[in-house]
């Protein structure tokens, strides 16, 4: 039901959000105190680690945040598509790995001038991710294997495959990684200050805008929304549910593959075990937290990237137990849930009113 928000309501929402932030900061402070450290120091170091201190912005550290944000938001963007279609694409982690593996293949065995070289690597990564996602999709639609179970199995398979490559055909004696790729095959940082690949950054921005527009404005996006809310009804309305589900997975796989390619072509410069690093799972968390409200996804994913990247500084400067960072992250999650939950509860009355508007007409709901 369409609802207009008054200024007072917006203010209230903002207030609830702020209260949640303050509450979680207090909670974090308490935990840090229990760990016998100074909360002020911890917050200061995290903010410094993100790149902001009394001396102004530190471009290098900001680059670190952005470099983690790029694969994270790429994955989140893909997951927006699958979540819209009601699919739990747990396999996103494996799709990242497959993207990384495909990109690594091109990087090692295809020799082209830099621009077509990197373009081909990225295309290969997209293909790898998409194929791996489609495999999960076919297992679901043809084999009746739920995408969660299929995804978990395919994650393991991708991981085992990458380790086999690293320790076998692509092994580099002495190290547990493939040989470093030559520099023409890499995504290069803009410069030594702003150490971010502009190509990767552009990929991220374009991908998000395109997916946002597609979900909003196309028939396909609307079909996914319908499938996500009720597959049965969507089918009866004439939506090709199976095809749409496969396409949604493929699109997510493409984006996950791109995310994987930034890990090998930029972050590490070679293929490593667990190259996806749990970023796919973090992406699932982020998209769940936003409740698939697309506009929040860049913001929340940036927040997570910032806290995680900022914690590198924290760990080194304060030498706290590393589990503390996990606690801080947990509290962050709690805060977002809390803000959502409180707001939801607070506006439940209005929601009920909206329901009730129909309830008047809903007497027959149980007919």
């Amino acid at each position: 039901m369409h609802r207009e928000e008054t200024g007072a309501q917006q203010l209230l929402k903002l207030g609830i959000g702020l209260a949640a932030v303050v509450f979680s900061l207090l909670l974090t402070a308490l935990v840090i105190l229990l760990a016998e450290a100074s909360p002020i120091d911890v917050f200061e170091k995290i903010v410094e680690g993100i790149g902001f201190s009394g001396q102004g912005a530190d471009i290098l550290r900001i680059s670190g945040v952005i470099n983690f944000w790029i694969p994270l938001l790429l994955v989140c963007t893909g997951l927006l598509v699958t979540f819209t279609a009601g699919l739990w694409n747990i396999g996103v982690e494996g799709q990242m790995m497959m993207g990384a593996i495909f990109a690594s293949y091109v990087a090692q065995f295809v020799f082209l001038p830099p621009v077509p070289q990197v373009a081909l690597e990225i295309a290969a990564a997209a293909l790898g991710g998409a194929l791996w996602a489609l495999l999960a999709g076919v297992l679901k639609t043809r084999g009746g294997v739920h995408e969660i179970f299929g995804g978990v199995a395919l994650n393991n398979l991708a991981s085992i495959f990458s380790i086999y490559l690293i320790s076998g055909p692509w092994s580099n004696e002495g190290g547990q990684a493939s040989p470093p790729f030559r520099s023409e095959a890499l995504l290069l940082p803009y410069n030594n200050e702003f150490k971010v690949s502009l190509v990767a950054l552009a990929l991220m921005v374009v991908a998000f805008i395109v997916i946002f527009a597609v979900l909003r404005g196309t028939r396909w996006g609307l079909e996914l929304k319908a499938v996500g809310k009720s597959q049965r009804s969507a089918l009866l309305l004439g939506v090709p549910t199976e095809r749409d589900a496969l396409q949604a997975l493929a699109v997510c796989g493409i984006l996950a593959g791109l995310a994987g390619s930034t890990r090998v072509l930029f972050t590490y410069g070679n293929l490593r075990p667990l190259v996806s690093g749990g970023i796919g799972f973090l992406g699932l968390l982020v998209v769940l937290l936003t409740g698939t409200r697309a506009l929040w996804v860049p913001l929340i994913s940036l927040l997570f990237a910032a806290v995680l990247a900022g914690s590198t500084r924290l760990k080194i400067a304060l030498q706290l137990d590393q589990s503390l960072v996990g606690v801080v992250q947990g509290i962050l999650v709690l805060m977002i849930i809390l803000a959502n939950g409180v707001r939801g509860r607070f506006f439940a009355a209005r929601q009920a009113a909206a329901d009730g508007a129909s309830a008047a007409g809903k007497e027959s709901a149980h007919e």
Partner: protein
Amino acid sequence: MSRRLLLSLVVVAALLLPAVSTLAQNDEFVFGLVFVGPRNDHGWSEAHYTAGRYVEEHIPGARMVFFESLNAADAPETTLEQVVDEMVGEGAQIIFTTSDDFEEDTAAVAEKYPDIIFVSVSGDDVLAGTAPENLSNIMGIMEYGKQIAGCAAALATETGGIGYLGPLINAETRRLAASVYLGARYCYEHYRGLDPDDLTFTVTWIGFWFNIPTVTLDPTEESRRFIDNGADVVISGIDTTEALVVAGQRAAAGEAVWGIPYDYKNACGEAEDICLGVPYFNWGPAYVDMIQAVRNGEYTQVWDWNGPYWDDINDVDRSAVGWVNGNGLTEEHAAQLDEFIAMLAETAPEQITKDNIDEPGQQIGLWVGPLNLQNGTVLAADGEIVPPSAVWYLEQLLEGMTGSSTAE
């Protein structure tokens, strides 16, 4: 919020503030340590962490900064370069990267920071001639510790079955597994009077230095499998202690099994009574040497392969590699083990460096022919010493061992 709670928070904050603003010391010397695992893993990383604390005790003004669990799974948001950036920002003048996993990245950041000294532990960049001047390598001759471990296992075993939990497969892990095997064969024959060919020596590679669920084989599960398949001594070649823990559980259930952990001096603590002993690294002295040299402006590039201090292999100030007996070792066996160690000492060079590695006649304990590689090719003819470089770059496991030599 109640006023009392608010008040107490303010008080706590006030108490903490002075602690926060500690004065920086003038003669501070900052050194960095990067660990691949957690600093309390009771294994490889903890041995390095202990050495860092040792440095702080022995060099006035020395302050350690460290970063633990730097690997793609635990810290996907961080690269070695970022960690080094932060450590340099903290004022670190020398940084130890303590895993072969960091070898290539360390070489890259060493180029980026030519004024900072980097020590890539267990690496061979210097030996291979690819390292910039500010990058050195150190390693302990753990082959001795492993031969002792193998001997202890052979003395204890009743079934003649020994299981070795290996990490991933490379030259280092092959030569260490092979050293255990050499020690076991020797002692099975000389002290037990049994045929060493009857020994069953199995190596299982889990795939990484420690357990990563779904990625590596599960070391706990593999340790159990060793025992189920007839081994009664389980030896760890990985950074963590699952082998000993499993042996302890099985012994508690009434089975006659023993375990030997690795890397860290106090690792037996996980299951003391059935621990035969532990071969461990004592990085402290080498760290102190490196740091003193840097501090005094006397740094020169090294590739040092440091052995035990044979007068007392457990001398914390001198020995790079040691062995402590565990409670599982009988007195008789302990005496035999002492005899074995004394024998190793007779032929041992104390330190192998990039300058002397190719000098003939340097014998690392039992690395003497006749020895064949697993595929049957001759490594050394009867009586021929295997040169240290051939040990370092061992290409295969030895004949008689069960397990893969390469990852395919």
